[in-house]
């Protein structure tokens, strides 16, 4: 409150000076008072954002939590700290999102991500923990460097859980199980350390084998696909061959059925014909027999190329054979006539 002395035009009268000073200071006092009160008032009013709560320390002692909105505190005596209890917080392990945008880029963090599995293999595990502050008092006043502590806890728990699983479980089948177990154990550790944190979710990102081993894991995938390919090809071959064979089998059977029908029908036809003829024959055996013989001969003989009739007394055929031309002359009249009727021999 050191104000400048009055201007140089003042008379050098001590009493006069003090009087002027007193008047001036009176005015200044009011101004100062207003300023101080104003500052205090400003200092005692604050807003808590919707996702936060305000924690009040009164003379160093916890004195309650304030909900969002306009709030008052005692100036100087009360200290305020805001904690975002309704915001979901997130920590990344084994990698870092470089710039969170539509296309985030990630940078691996080998130190954090490398771990040993229960079958003494190595795996690269990246994960995210989402959590919220549920107890602002504990969050603020129970653990020093809570963020660092939380990271340590998360790493320890993840390694413990991965250490109890095979590399296959870590990389493929056991992911959901790992997430669930880590969440439970990390929550238990959070409670033990009085962090005031509630774990929402543990999410495994890409779990991979270590870089030098990756090609051999890919080779396994390829082999698996080759297995499928071989099986598919064999099945295709099966499906190509068997239905055709089944069709052919049906064809064979149908042909046999056809043969059977043919055979039986013919037999029946033949039998019926025979029976009919036989009936006729029984009534006049000799006549029928002769008639049939002659009819047959009539049909058959014209087809015969050469017809030689030999007398029953002739011993050998040779003499006749040498007289080819004569043979015709010696045949009977009827035979000769028939041969002429035939035209061609």
């Amino acid at each position: 409150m050191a104000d400048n002395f009055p201007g140089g035009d003042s008379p050098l009268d001590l009493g006069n000076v003090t009087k002027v000073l007193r008047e001036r200071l009176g005015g200044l006092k009011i101004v100062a008072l207003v300023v101080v009160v104003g500052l205090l008032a400003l200092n005692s009013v604050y807003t808590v954002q919707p996702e936060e709560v305000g924690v009040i320390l009164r003379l160093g002692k916890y004195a309650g939590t304030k909900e969002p909105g306009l709030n008052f505190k005692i100036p100087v005596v009360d200290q305020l700290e805001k904690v975002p209890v309704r915001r979901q917080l997130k920590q990344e392990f084994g990698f870092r999102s470089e710039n969170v945008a539509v296309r985030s880029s990630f940078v691996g963090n080998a130190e954090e991500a490398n771990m040993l599995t229960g079958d003494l293999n190595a795996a690269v595990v990246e994960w995210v923990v989402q959590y919220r502050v549920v107890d602002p008092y504990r969050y603020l006043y129970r653990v020093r460097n809570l963020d660092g502590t939380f990271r340590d806890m998360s790493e320890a728990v993840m390694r413990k859980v991965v250490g109890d699983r095979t590399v296959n479980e870590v990389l493929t089948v056991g992911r959901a199980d790992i997430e669930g177990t880590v969440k439970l154990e990390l929550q238990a550790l959070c409670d033990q350390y009085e962090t005031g944190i509630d774990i929402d979710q543990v999410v495994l990102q890409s779990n991979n084998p270590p870089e030098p081993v990756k090609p051999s894991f890919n080779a396994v995938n390829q082999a698996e696909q080759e297995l499928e390919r071989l099986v598919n090809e064999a099945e295709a071959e099966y499906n190509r061959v068997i239905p055709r064979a089944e069709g052919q089998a049906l064809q064979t059977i149908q042909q046999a059925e056809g043969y059977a029908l043919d055979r039986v029908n013919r037999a029946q036809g033949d039998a019926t014909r025979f029976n009919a003829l036989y009936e006729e024959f029984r009534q006049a055996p000799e006549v029928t027999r002769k008639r049939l013989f002659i009819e047959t001969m009539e049909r058959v003989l014209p087809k015969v190329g050469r017809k030689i009739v030999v007398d029953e007394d002739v011993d050998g055929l040779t003499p006749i054979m040498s007289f080819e031309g004569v043979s015709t002359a010696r045949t009977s009249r009827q035979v000769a006539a028939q041969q002429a009727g035939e035209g061609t021999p």
Partner: protein
Amino acid sequence: MKRIVVVILALGLLLLANLSLFIVREDRQAIITEFGAPVGDAIDTPGLKFKLPWRNAQYFDRRFLEWQGSAEELPTRDKVFIFVDTYARWRISDPLLFFQRLRDERGAQSRLDDILDGETRNAIANHDLIEVIRSSNREAAADESYPDAGGGLEEIVTGRDKIRQDILAAAQTRTDDLGIQVLDVQFRRINYGEQVEPDVFNRMISERQRIADRFRSQGQGQASEILGNMDRDLKRIESEAYRQATEIRGRADAEATEIYASAYNQSVQSRNFYEFLRTMEAFETTIDPNTWLVVSTDSDYFSFLKASGP
């Protein structure tokens, strides 16, 4: 002059208040010292506190504090070198004792280094690698696509959690008289040492190759099985078809034979007639233009000719 006295008095009171009142924050605790020596009990509740003006307040943290182990390459009992990185949580449980024995946090950290690093080294050296890694004897989840892939999970006797608890217990007894309490020790990171890593990777690679080979031979095996089934089915289908067809033909032949027999075999006469008829038919089919017919005059045929001749 009166005014000056009042001002001086007020300033004096303020100074006195400043010297004898102090605030212990929610996250702190304090002890009172008189010329360097602690007096009275520790103050472990927050709020506005009072002391004699010539005494001093020494503040200590009341929260859980960190301790980071030095990441070291240590041999396990089965002579595998691993990097072990531990962390611990501790708190100042008795500020008076703490102040006397350790003075401040730096002192505490270096003492904790000695105790915890030492205990960790002992614990690792006394256990096989698998005991440090696994914490239970849980069964690995079955994976149909990788039957007995990998080495599986070895059984353990002690386990990571127990080793950790043993380190904690040992550390707790050794820090008992230091006014600090170690709350928890955890293995933060355990990794293979640089010299072991290539061997492990090679083992993993050969393991994967084994699995890949299995898949391949499995594929060939399954394909062969399918092709074998195909051959069997093919033979079955073909032979069944042959059997059925032959049976059908046989039955038909039998039926036809029976039909013929029942027609031809009625009596001696019918048998003769059949022979005659059949002979006639045979004539028709066997004789063609290349046939020479040599007929004796006394043959049956000729007798007909004679008989029917003029």
